[in-house]
């Protein structure tokens, strides 16, 4: 290990461990400085690509690699560390140290995965992410959060086990633990197992239901962290191990469509944003599946932009829940008068995700669609364009309309409580909003970081501008006429989590109803058959004991007594010489038999 290498995750972990000892006026600066130091160390690493932190483990049989710094890990490491700074600023007002500790361990897990070079280290940090983020759900005291946390943990434990199974099988077959690009031609069972384990974290259907479920139940700052790290870390691992796997194109497009359709029907703000994460991550999964240099660049760029604007949207949503305590469209509406600054940032986030010119989505999403066209994948390209129409419909129009405009559905109490968030939340939103604009307007900032720097892409051509503006304008036209169709409705939409949520209830029902019935029957049968036969048997033994055993025992006792009496009468007549004669004869017989035998 070279001395200049300090793993960025280590800074977060030490920062988290020492946080409880930092008190008073030092606490807030400390909360700011630790993620900032992490960001600086990530930037420092990006100037020194190479492989660091190679450790021999278990007597040198295995080599663990903690620090693989190349262009792919650099861009992801940078955005994760940046988001850690923004997220921590957003949560500065949170007094509970445990929330910060959980978030920082979560970030450390993500950074550890990004810089790792083998499956063992990957797995270690992968599980660290899963456990730390579970606590971000449990810190929310709302109804249902505890159960949602358990569901999240169970699903991710399952994913972790699948991943473990995959790389252990691979180790058995090849003796190799290194985390590198796998071969599609020689795909084995372990290839698909590893892919499934990673895909669960990327929320690829049918392994996606945990995402809207968990993110809508997390604590306010917890959700801001969660929306950035789990899925995009998984995208990094997919880009590392599975670039060019055709099946990812199909799955990616499917999840993009699936997510946006559920988002259109959704009534909870954070569930809607969660569905939209699934939809946007679908673009990235498609990009990984296409696997060309432009597509991988597009995936990384879109992940980068996505973390910023989705973080911004979750921060704005968090500001609304923080102020009003409500998260459903049916309880909100018309709030622009009370929360204008939140409105402003939600719109910035909305137009960034919708790919408005000069905002981040415009220069990143188009890269994946262009890569798709260039690879002659016309159907995926057109379908992804359709989804980007849906994205504007949901995040750019429906979301702000139902919260800030239109009729107010707020109760008097909600209306009274609604106000813009405290300064630290606003500062975090300003930072994220500014970065959305920077990414979209100053191309070298992001494009120079991408894994393939020599691939040229020019988003600001006349044709691309005209295409985007037409799509956006006519989405808005359709929204004007059809907005009643996608209004606020007090419903939830059933999804594949039905199987394990209702499955659990069915299990409980089976346990309480048929199994209980069987138990009752058994009890009755036992009472009727078992107890009767037991009593009968007991009576028999009682009789036997009385008449049999006692008879024998009493009989022998009586017999002994009778014999004794006879002996007394015949032998002990009180004459001493006769008694001595009998005794000596008896002793002589004993002695003779002893010697003779």
């Amino acid at each position: 290990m070279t001395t200049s290498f300090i793993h960025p995750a280590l800074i977060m972990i030490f920062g988290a461990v020492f946080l409880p000892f930092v008190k008073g006026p030092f606490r807030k600066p400390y909360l700011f400085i630790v993620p900032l130091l992490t960001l600086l160390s990530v930037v420092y690493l990006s100037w020194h690509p190479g492989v660091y932190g190679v450790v021999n483990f278990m007597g040198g049989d295995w080599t663990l690699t903690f620090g693989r710094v190349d262009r792919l890990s650099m861009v992801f490491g940078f955005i994760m560390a940046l988001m850690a700074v923004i997220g921590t600023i957003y949560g500065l007002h949170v007094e509970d140290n445990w929330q910060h500790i959980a978030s920082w361990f979560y970030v450390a897990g993500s950074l550890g995965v990004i810089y790792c070079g083998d499956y063992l280290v990957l797995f270690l940090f992968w599980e660290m992410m899963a456990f730390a983020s579970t606590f971000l759900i449990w810190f929310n005291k709302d109804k249902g959060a505890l159960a949602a946390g358990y569901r999240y943990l169970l699903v991710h434990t399952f994913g972790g086990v699948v991943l473990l199974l995959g790389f252990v099988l691979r180790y058995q077959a090849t003796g190799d633990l290194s985390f590198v690009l796998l071969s599609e031609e020689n795909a084995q069972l372990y290839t698909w197992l590893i892919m499934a384990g990673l895909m669960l974290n990327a929320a690829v259907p049918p392994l996606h239901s945990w995402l809207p479920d968990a993110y809508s139940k997390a604590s306010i700052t917890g959700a801001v962290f969660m929306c950035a790290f789990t899925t995009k870390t998984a995208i990094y691992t997919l880009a590392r191990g599975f670039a060019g796997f055709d099946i990812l194109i199909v799955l990616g497009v499917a999840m993009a469509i699936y997510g946006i359709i559920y988002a259109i029907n959704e009534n909870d703000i954070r569930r809607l944003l969660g569905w939209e994460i699934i939809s946007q991550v679908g673009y990235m999964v498609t990009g990984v599946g296409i696997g060309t240099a432009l597509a991988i660049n597009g995936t990384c760029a879109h992940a980068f932009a996505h973390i910023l604007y989705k973080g911004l949207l979750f921060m704005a949503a968090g500001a609304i829940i923080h102020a009003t305590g409500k998260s459903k469209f049916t309880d909100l509406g018309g709030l622009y008068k009370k929360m204008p600054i939140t409105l402003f940032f939600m719109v910035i986030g909305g137009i960034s995700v919708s790919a408005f010119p000069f905002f981040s989505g415009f220069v990143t999403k188009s890269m994946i669609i262009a890569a798709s066209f260039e690879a002659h994948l016309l159907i995926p390209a057109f379908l992804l364009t359709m989804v980007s129409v849906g994205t504007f419909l949901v995040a750019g129009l429906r979301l702000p309309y139902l919260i800030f405009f239109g009729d107010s559905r707020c109760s008097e109490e909600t209306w009274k409580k609604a106000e813009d968030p405290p300064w630290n939340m606003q500062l975090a939103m300003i930072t994220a909003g500014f970065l959305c604009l920077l990414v979209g307007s100053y191309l070298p900032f992001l494009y120079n970081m991408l894994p393939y720097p020599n691939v040229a892409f020019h988003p600001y051509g006349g044709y691309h501008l005209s295409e985007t503006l037409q799509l956006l304008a006519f989405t808005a036209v359709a929204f004007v006429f059809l907005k009643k169709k996608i209004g606020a409705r007090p419903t939830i939409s059933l999804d594949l989590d039905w199987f394990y949520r209702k499955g659990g209830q069915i299990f409980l029902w089976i346990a309480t109803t048929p199994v209980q019935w069987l138990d009752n029957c058994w009890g009755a049968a036992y009472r009727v058959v078992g107890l009767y036969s037991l009593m009968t048997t007991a009576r028999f033994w009682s009789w036997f004991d009385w008449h049999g055993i006692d008879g024998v025992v009493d009989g022998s006792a009586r017999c002994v007594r009778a014999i004794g009496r006879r002996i007394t009468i015949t032998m002990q007549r009180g004459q001493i010489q006769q008694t001595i004669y009998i005794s000596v004869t008896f002793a002589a017989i004993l002695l003779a038999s002893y010697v003779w035998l």
Partner: protein
Amino acid sequence: MIIKIVDYLKERPGPVKFSFYVAVAIMVVWSIGGVDTHHAHTWAEMYIPGFWSLFGLAACIVLIYVARWLGKSGIMTREDYYDN
């Protein structure tokens, strides 16, 4: 300031709508007449005037109706469905 702008626009729904449609019309005219489509990826983009306008409108309507149809087909249910 933001509140004032929103209030100002809300008080004038007619002119707002009118200027929105005018902007859309100008944009469409520019897209059909002023943009070089020779480097587009597909035949449809090159030869159907305002292809992306039609595509955007159709895509939006399709998505909304598919979502509504799916919702009504039994996917959407009461909020306390899982609570019992």
